[in-house]
């Protein structure tokens, strides 16, 4: 766990910085910021970007098999949006001095992570519903909170991303609703998908607050605005009701409404599974990274060609001007 540094060894610059943060001012790229703030943000934003990009794979997996042309177009557009979010986020990280190349290299080398939810496979069409409904749903809860994050470019990126994500979440929910109202096979498919994605979605919010690294300092710097457990509770509360509406059952025997808390109580997360999957035992860890590396390597000659073409063009332009 990162400890909050005691006030005593804070430099005057850092004190001013913290005052601005406390006053809810946004930090902008050219502003002075503590090195750790910068590094912490780069880590978080690039992980977020990688998650969007790796997240294209489980859904991309069903584009060629979507069951109707309408659903195919919606899915294609959604995966495209995810790529677009990746782009905004890489740009936001670049304002902090990280290059896209470095970030991609860190991903390929295993130094940078992506959301572990994408280590789970998409096995049926219902997973296109569950991913939109639950995975995007969980992402939105987190991202809505991040709209108020202290770093300006990241906060503004979140505003834009949230709009699209909530659209995706509704599309995913609509797929699930259609299946839940469909044939017995379709309903079973939807329930099975919910069973597989429910717990991994809760894991998306990260460890319990008591176990969470980075959290305290991030909260003080307002990089994070709400704790993992607060966000997770919010997600559970909204999602349980949505499941009821379409007649699907949340796979948690301990789930019950707690009148006193005004929240749902829910069962304990299998943190052992969480760590196993993050550390390499998911069904798709190696495939996700290998897919990204392969596309990147196969594209090298194309990127080289652009560079060569632009250089020739500049030379021609210069000769024409001379």
């Amino acid at each position, binding site marked *: 766990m990162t400890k909050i540094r005691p006030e005593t060894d804070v430099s005057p610059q850092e004190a001013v910085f913290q005052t601005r943060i406390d006053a809810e001012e946004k930090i902008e790229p050219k502003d002075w910021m503590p090195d750790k703030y910068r590094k912490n943000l780069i880590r978080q934003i690039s992980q977020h970007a990688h998650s969007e990009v790796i997240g294209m794979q489980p859904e991309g997996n069903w584009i060629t*098999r979507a069951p109707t042309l309408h659903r195919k177009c919606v899915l*294609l557009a959604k995966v495209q949006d995810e*790529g677009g979010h990746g782009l905004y986020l890489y740009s936001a990280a670049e304002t902090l001095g990280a290059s896209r190349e470095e970030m991609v290299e860190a991903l390929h080398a295993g130094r940078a992570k992506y959301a572990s939810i994408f280590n789970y496979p998409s096995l049926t069409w219902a997973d296109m519903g569950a991913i939109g409904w639950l995975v995007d749903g969980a992402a939105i809860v987190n991202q809505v909170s991040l709209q108020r994050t202290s770093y300006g470019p990241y906060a503004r990126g979140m505003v834009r991303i949230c709009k699209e994500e909530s659209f995706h979440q509704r599309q995913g929910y609509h797929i699930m609703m259609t299946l839940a109202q469909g044939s017995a096979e379709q309903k079973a498919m939807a329930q099975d998908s919910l069973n597989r994605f429910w717990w991994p979605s809760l894991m998306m919010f990260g460890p319990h607050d008591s176990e969470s690294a980075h959290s305290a300092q991030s909260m003080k710097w307002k990089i994070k605005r709400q704790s993992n457990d607060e966000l997770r509770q919010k997600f559970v509360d909204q999602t349980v009701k949505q499941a009821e509406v379409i007649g699907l059952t949340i796979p948690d025997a301990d789930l019950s409404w707690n009148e006193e808390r005004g929240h749902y109580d829910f069962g304990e997360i299998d943190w052992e599974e969480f760590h196993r999957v993050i550390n390499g035992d998911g069904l798709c860890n190696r495939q996700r990274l290998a*897919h990204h590396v392969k*596309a990147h390597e196969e*594209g090298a*000659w194309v990127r080289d060609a*652009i560079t060569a*073409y632009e250089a020739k063009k500049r030379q021609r332009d210069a000769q024409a001007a001379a």
Partner: protein
Amino acid sequence: MSAMTTQEATRQYAIRLGDDALILGHRLSEWCSNAPFLEEDLALTNVALDFIGRARMFYSYAAELSGDGRSEDSFAYQRDCREFTNLLMHELPRGDFAFTMARQYLIDEYSLAFMEQMLSSTDPTLAAIAAKAVKESRYHLRRSRDWVLRLGDGTEESHQRMQTAINELWGYNAELFEMDTLEADLAGQGIAVDTTALRQPWSAAVQATLAEATLAVPETDWSVRGGRQGLHTESLGHLLSELQFIQRAYPGLEW
């Protein structure tokens, strides 16, 4: 043709154009998460979406003309290989990025000219589809032509790959400009596009682009045809087994 009503001929024509668009859109969609860089991934997806959208318009019109309860999805999901009538160039496996872009360029040059003609179709639905498609095709062509230039006049490797792609595609050109009696009759009525008339300007445009890209115009003496008669390369069947899996495995449901 004497036995076929104009409506039936138009229906078949719409299916053909829908098949072209769907199959090419499918091949483009295979690039999703596989492109050389992220911006290009999004751009390819955009073009895929335009073509699949185009397929939906043509199939919807065919469904309307069928008048038997079929929908756009019936044409995409419930016909086997021999019933698909796309021109062969559209179905060829995506190959490397040079192949995809070379094909896209040849088709975009064709498609823009085609849609510009279809704007004045006496069939108002076809004309309306063309109005939307023509704008898309202008953007597609700008992009794919740029790629032919960049790859053709880029590195030695990219030049070689682009030249190979053009060579491999060349024999599929002829089919784009051939018409059977169905299309000739419809063209005579002002409904279909006279594609034979597109050949000259298309060739001129393509040759100019290849020259600018430092690429050679292939001296190929082969040409392959059959798409409009449902004769295909073997790759189409595999594409369909993927495309149609859910509808085939769980028939007759809503999704």
